[in-house]
């Protein structure tokens, strides 16, 4: 009985450590995003990136970092409009943290042949059943989204639902829907390419996992010595 108790205690400790390690892990995902903007009619547009908090508690448990912006002949137009937990601009990098319900940046740009950027996204799932969402849209100069095939009606080109599993949706412009200025736009859906490992356990997690395993080994050795 004593042995069984010892084993049970050890297993419990290991499980607790593993659970703790899992709970505090921060699995980031990295993507390169490419949007072909060459077919856009001449003029100024705006890029609209948003991160909404699904929990409604402003839990700040997810961060989106946008960097390495490339306009391929185009350029960003200053200044940006920032909402909630948004910082930065398209000339350098942008950070969105869900410490408000609505966190967004809107900044004008002149399109070149394509628009590219790197997306670094944490993937913590919100409590309460409603996930955080990252989305990207392109607006006409009058501030209205280019119509896309996004069935939700939000006219996004890219929507990433930060749930389990992560859900990435891309949409092309709707060639049959008139824009707010009366013309029709054809634009492919953005291409989202993974970069590097999908999830990187943090050192603290490894430390906890290692501690648990060490305890397990020690327990087995003690048993063998007896």
């Amino acid at each position, binding site marked *: 009985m004593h042995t069984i108790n010892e084993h049970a205690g050890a297993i419990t400790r290991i499980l607790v450590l593993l659970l703790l390690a899992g709970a505090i892990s921060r699995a980031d995902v990295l993507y390169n995003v490419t949007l072909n903007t060459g077919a856009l009619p001449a003029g100024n547009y705006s890029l*609209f990136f*948003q991160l*909404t*908090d*699904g929990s*409604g508690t*402003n839990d700040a448990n997810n961060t989106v970092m946008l960097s390495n912006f490339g306009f391929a002949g185009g350029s960003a137009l200053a200044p940006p409009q920032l*909402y*909630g937990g948004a910082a930065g601009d398209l000339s350098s990098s942008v950070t969105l943290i869900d410490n*408000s*319900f*609505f966190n*967004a940046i*809107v900044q004008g740009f002149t399109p070149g042949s394509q628009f590219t950027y790197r997306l670094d996204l944490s993937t913590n799932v919100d409590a309460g*059943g*409603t*996930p*955080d*969402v990252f*989305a990207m*849209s392109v*607006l006409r100069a009058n*501030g*209205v*989204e280019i119509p896309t095939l996004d*069935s*939700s*009606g*939000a*006219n*996004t080109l890219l*929507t990433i*639902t*930060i*749930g389990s599993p992560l859900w990435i949706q891309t949409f092309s412009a709707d060639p049959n829907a008139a824009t*707010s200025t009366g013309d029709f736009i054809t634009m492919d859906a953005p291409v989202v390419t993974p970069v590097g490992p999908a999830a990187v356990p943090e050192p603290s997690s490894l430390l906890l996992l290692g501690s648990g395993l060490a305890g397990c080994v020690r327990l087995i050795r003690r048993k063998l010595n007896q």
Partner: protein
Amino acid sequence: MNLMIRKLVVFFTAFLAVFLGAGALYAQSAACPAGSQLYVYTGKPLTQLWYDYNGGPDPNGKNPFKTINGYICVPVGRCRQFLTDVTQLVTDFSFSSGGYTVSKSSPDLTVAQTSFYLRCDADGNVSGWSLQAARGFPGTCNGVFGFGTMTMGGDCRGAPSGHCNFPYPNDSAEASKCDPDGKDTFIGGASPPLGDPGDWRTNVECADFLNGFVSLNVTGPTITAVFTPPGDLHVAANVCGVDHFNWQQTINYLPAPNSSITLPNPPGLMLTAPPRIFDPAPKGVIDYSQHYVQCRGKEWAVTSPAVDLSYPFYYSDAELSHMATADQLTFQDSPSDPCMSGNDPSGNPGIAHTEFTTWLVGVDQFGLPVSLPVLNSWDWLSTWNGSSGGAYGIKNLNLPDPGSGTGGTTVLSINGVPTRGTCASNTTASVTVKRGGYVYSIGTGRFTQTVTLTNTSAGTLNGPVSLVLDKLTNGVSLYNAGGVTYCTEPVGSAYLSEPGDLKSGQSVNFTLQFTDPTKTGISYTPRVLSGLGPQ
């Protein structure tokens, strides 16, 4: 024959003497003071009146029962004071009682007449009451016409008298308790017409004046309710311990766009609900001046009447004086808004409609609302998009302008009981609800969310399937709602519906569009309804 006639004359003389000996009865028409004892009679106007505690008929015309208004209240210590200003007649009503009752529907249907008596003690206080029934036995009592009397109720009962006994208990022991010191005096008596004994009751309660005395009527865009309590409003208010009655009304659902602007002015905000608001609102409902609203494809000029400060009641004191008589209190509303759907209100009202709850309320002497022990409340909606009295207004005392619009009003429920048939079923436990995240559109100014329902039960859920959003964050509204619940609890929650059945294992997506002007967060509790019947 002469002998027979003489016998009858003797009998009736003796019978009358019983009543004459009862003396006078004191009552008052004003509100009964606290501590007064209240007695109520319902039936035909009383015709046989007995007065003068020294015996004899009513020589001075002071018997209060001459023009009885259905209640007799005797202030403590004023048993011998004459009161003569009772004015209202009572015709036909009845109410429950914890006391003894004699009426046409009593066990003995041959009761021909009833009389009510009060007794005064030596100090001038009411020491007791009794209710006496008289019954004729034509050809059945010892072979001749007979007549008998019996004290049926009161704080003591007496022995029967007359030629034949009544089939009621004879409690001599009780009778002996009536007046142990022998100092009581019968001070009054009254009887309704012979053959129509009426309905006598004591221990009346406020509920007796509220239960079933509000009638509802819907005619096109106009809804009318009339509160006609037994006796009159004064009696009912007296019994219920309030100064008078009024109505209260809330607007439970009022989508944008609409023609109602909140104060102050300028600029004024468009009024919307939920959350439910009083009608009229604390600072009035409508802007002082003309304003404009765009809906149904055109711009409408809305010229409002003077600001309405009836809050927290539906009617101000001035309006109430026009809506109340001595006998009844009327409620009438013809809400009109050019932005409403104009749909047939008995079918699908569409999103553009207004929902209300109206109820009867007491008002105390300080002008504050007092809840009544019996609910007289109803939920209703209006789709009317015409004008009333040449104007648009949620609280509208004018009659509709014929031909100025379409739609109308309908009652959804009375005292919480739906009037439109069986409601849709709550099948929340049979589905899983998977919510997507919120995505904002700058172009529309709305957040969208996709919600997926999956039928996890073994059976099919009959369509339409509705996703109801309970406890939606204040200030947030479901832009593309198909309506709000009015048949299932909680009412007033926005919902979306998808036609068709949902088979076992099958899923259906709902795309929700929210307006959240502050962008500070959206939350709700999902509820799923399925099947035919209103949500």
